[in-house]
């Protein structure tokens, strides 16, 4: 009981004391917290620094090895280049040595060698003489050829003259102008005339027709070609001797143009084309393309009464489908058969036979 009373007497101050005791510690708490934080941060810093130091050391080792590797590679290249240069210098030096010796030898033997020079000049002069002679011969040969050509030309001209003047030849009765009776010998022209063969008259050349007719104007407006005759003219050649047929006939026969038969000349689906033609002509006469419809208002009020056939359930059998021309399913390939009527040969040879039987005189 006494403790209770004591406690109760003290109860009012307990709260204060509790509060007071707790609050005294507070600044120390903060101080201690700060101290702890400081210690921790310092320690962590040391830890991290140690770690970084460790990493640096390792990285240094790696870099060291890598750089040494690169350096060794570079060194190999440098060594190769240096070796190469050294060898090339050696070769060049050797080549220079060889060239030096050779040039010295050459100059001493050929260029500064007086006797060799004399030899050379002698050879040169001999070559010169040979060339001069050869060229002289060449020029002479050319001269001769030219003279010969001139002579031949003269000869030909004289021959031609003689042939033209052959009628001046002397006969037995009448001496010609070159064979005067007062001369001891006949003139050389006389002999020439005797040897010459008379010229023949020139056959008149086949003249090309002057094409100035109207159809030719129409023909030449095309940019393809000049106006030309239908028959190709032959290349000019010598007239053959002998009784030959007239050349124009022969050419007409030889270059006769193609005359196809009726069967070839007409197209194969002529019937269809003719039908199309007819349809087109009829279409020309149409006033309007639409189907002509009846007037709609005329039977508006009337009701349509269908027939018995139409009002039944059963429709008629569509017999259109039996026919191949109306039913595409019956076609063998994707097109219908064509109606082809070939023309017949009855009149194809009309007027082209040799016989004149039946012609009206």
């Amino acid at each position, binding site marked *: 009981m006494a403790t209770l009373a004591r406690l109760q007497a003290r109860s009012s101050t307990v709260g204060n004391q509790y509060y007071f005791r707790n609050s005294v510690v507070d600044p120390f708490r903060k101080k201690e917290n700060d101290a702890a934080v400081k210690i921790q941060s310092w320690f962590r810093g040391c830890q991290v620094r140690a770690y970084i130091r460790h990493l640096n050391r390792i990285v240094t080792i790696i870099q060291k090895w890598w750089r040494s590797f690169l350096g060794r590679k570079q060194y190999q290249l440098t060594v190769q280049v240096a070796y190469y240069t050294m060898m090339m210098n050696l070769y060049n030096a050797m080549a220079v040595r060889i060239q030096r010796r050779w040039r010295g030898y050459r100059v001493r033997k050929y260029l500064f060698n007086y006797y060799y020079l004399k030899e050379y*000049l002698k050879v040169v002069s001999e070559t010169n003489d040979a060339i*001069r002679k050869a060229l002289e011969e060449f020029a002479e040969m050319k001269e001769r050829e030219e003279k010969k050509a001139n002579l031949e030309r003269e000869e030909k001209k004289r021959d031609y003259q003689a042939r033209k003047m052959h009628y001046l030849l002397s006969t037995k009765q009448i001496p010609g102008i070159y064979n005067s009776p007062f001369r001891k010998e006949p003139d050389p022209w006389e002999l020439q005339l005797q040897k010459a063969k008379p010229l023949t008259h020139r056959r008149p050349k086949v003249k090309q027709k002057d094409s100035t007719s109207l159809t030719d104007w129409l023909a030449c407006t095309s940019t393809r070609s000049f106006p030309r005759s239908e028959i190709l003219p032959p290349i000019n050649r010598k007239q053959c001797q002998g009784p030959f047929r007239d050349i124009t006939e022969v050419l007409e026969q030889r270059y006769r143009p193609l005359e196809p038969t009726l069967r070839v000349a007409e197209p194969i689906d002529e019937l269809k084309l003719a039908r199309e033609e007819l349809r087109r002509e009829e279409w020309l006469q149409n006033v309007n393309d639409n189907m002509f419809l009846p007037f709609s208002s005329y039977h508006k009020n009337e009701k349509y009464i269908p027939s018995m056939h139409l009002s039944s359930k059963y429709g008629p059998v569509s017999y259109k489908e039996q026919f191949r021309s109306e039913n595409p399913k019956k076609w063998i390939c994707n097109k219908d058969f064509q109606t082809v009527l070939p023309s017949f040969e009855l009149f194809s040879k009309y007027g082209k036979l040799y016989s004149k039987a039946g012609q009206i005189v």
Partner: protein
Amino acid sequence: MSQRQVLQVFEQYQKARTQFVQMVAELATRPQNIETLQNAGVMSLLRTLLLDVVPTIQQTAALALGRLANYNDDLAEAVVKCDILPQLVYSLAEQNRFYKKAAAFVLRAVGKHSPQLAQAIVDCGALDTLVICLEDFDPGVKEAAAWALRYIARHNAELSQAVVDAGAVPLLVLCIQEPEIALKRIAASALSDIAKHSPELAQTVVDAGAVAHLAQMILNPDAKLKHQILSALSQVSKHSVDLAEMVVEAEIFPVVLTCLKDKDEYVKKNASTLIREIAKHTPELSQLVVNAGGVAAVIDCIGSCKGNTRLPGIMMLGYVAAHSENLAMAVIISKGVPQLSVCLSEEPEDHIKAAAAWALGQIGRHTPEHARAVAVTNTLPVLLSLYMSTESSEDLQVKVLFPWIFRYTSAEGGQLSTT
């Protein structure tokens, strides 16, 4: 009936056009008519007729235009200004061979006068069509196209480059191999005019394999063809040592020496030009020429010619002698010096005298032996008189003065001081 009358009208018009264009083409052949024709405004009329429906009229109109443009460069400029060229080029591709010939003739006539006109032709795209014409079957068309290309390429290096870029060179080399002489001539002259401007163009010509064919055709008897071939080879070889070596490898020696004996003056001149261009590059090439006996042939050729045809031969001797003293000695023993002194004294022209004096100087300058060989022929008085005379040109005096007086009036050559 009325159709016939209508067609009659058209026919009359066509006849009138044909007659007009034929008369104009005929009148254009005579120079005195051309002024009158130009004043009458024939250019615009021919231009419309060029677009005519009838092919004969087109061709005759093109022919008349070509003759007019051929006459002088004002008319050629008028042709260019009237926009006739694009029409020509366009229809060149599709028409027949007579039209192609006439149109190529017009292009040639326009292109030959000046570089600007040739540039105008290139600008309207004519080169491609001309190259297509070079592939045609008819040799007349090929000849006309090659001639037009030649006149275009003649003026300067850019135009030649344009012709080469259009792919003309291989076709020209094919044209050279054709049997017709006229075509060969024109193709050779076209290649010569292309190659003359620069080393690259000459290299292009050589790359197309032209040198072998040209070298084969030296033996052809036709004089004009030889003239063009030799000109082409000399234009190729003049640019560099490699090109000259390539020409020599085609085995032109000693065939070229026969051309020095030809009757035609131009063939001789071009042959000596070719040898000069080969010999001038290096001592080895000159040695080759001397070994083949070229010096003797050239000296004979100089002896048989007169005037300007001698000039390349004289220069060739100078070049050969200039390379080394052995070659100069070779020239001396081939009896070159008397010939040169004869040229010096008897030629009236100054530049030939100057060249002869220079050649003698090159021969004589190496050693006293050479100088003595020259002095023996009594050329020195002639040289001195030329130097002293008032009417000789500066060039001549310089060439005479330099090798002699500054070199050999000193110690050596007692013979020299006595003369």
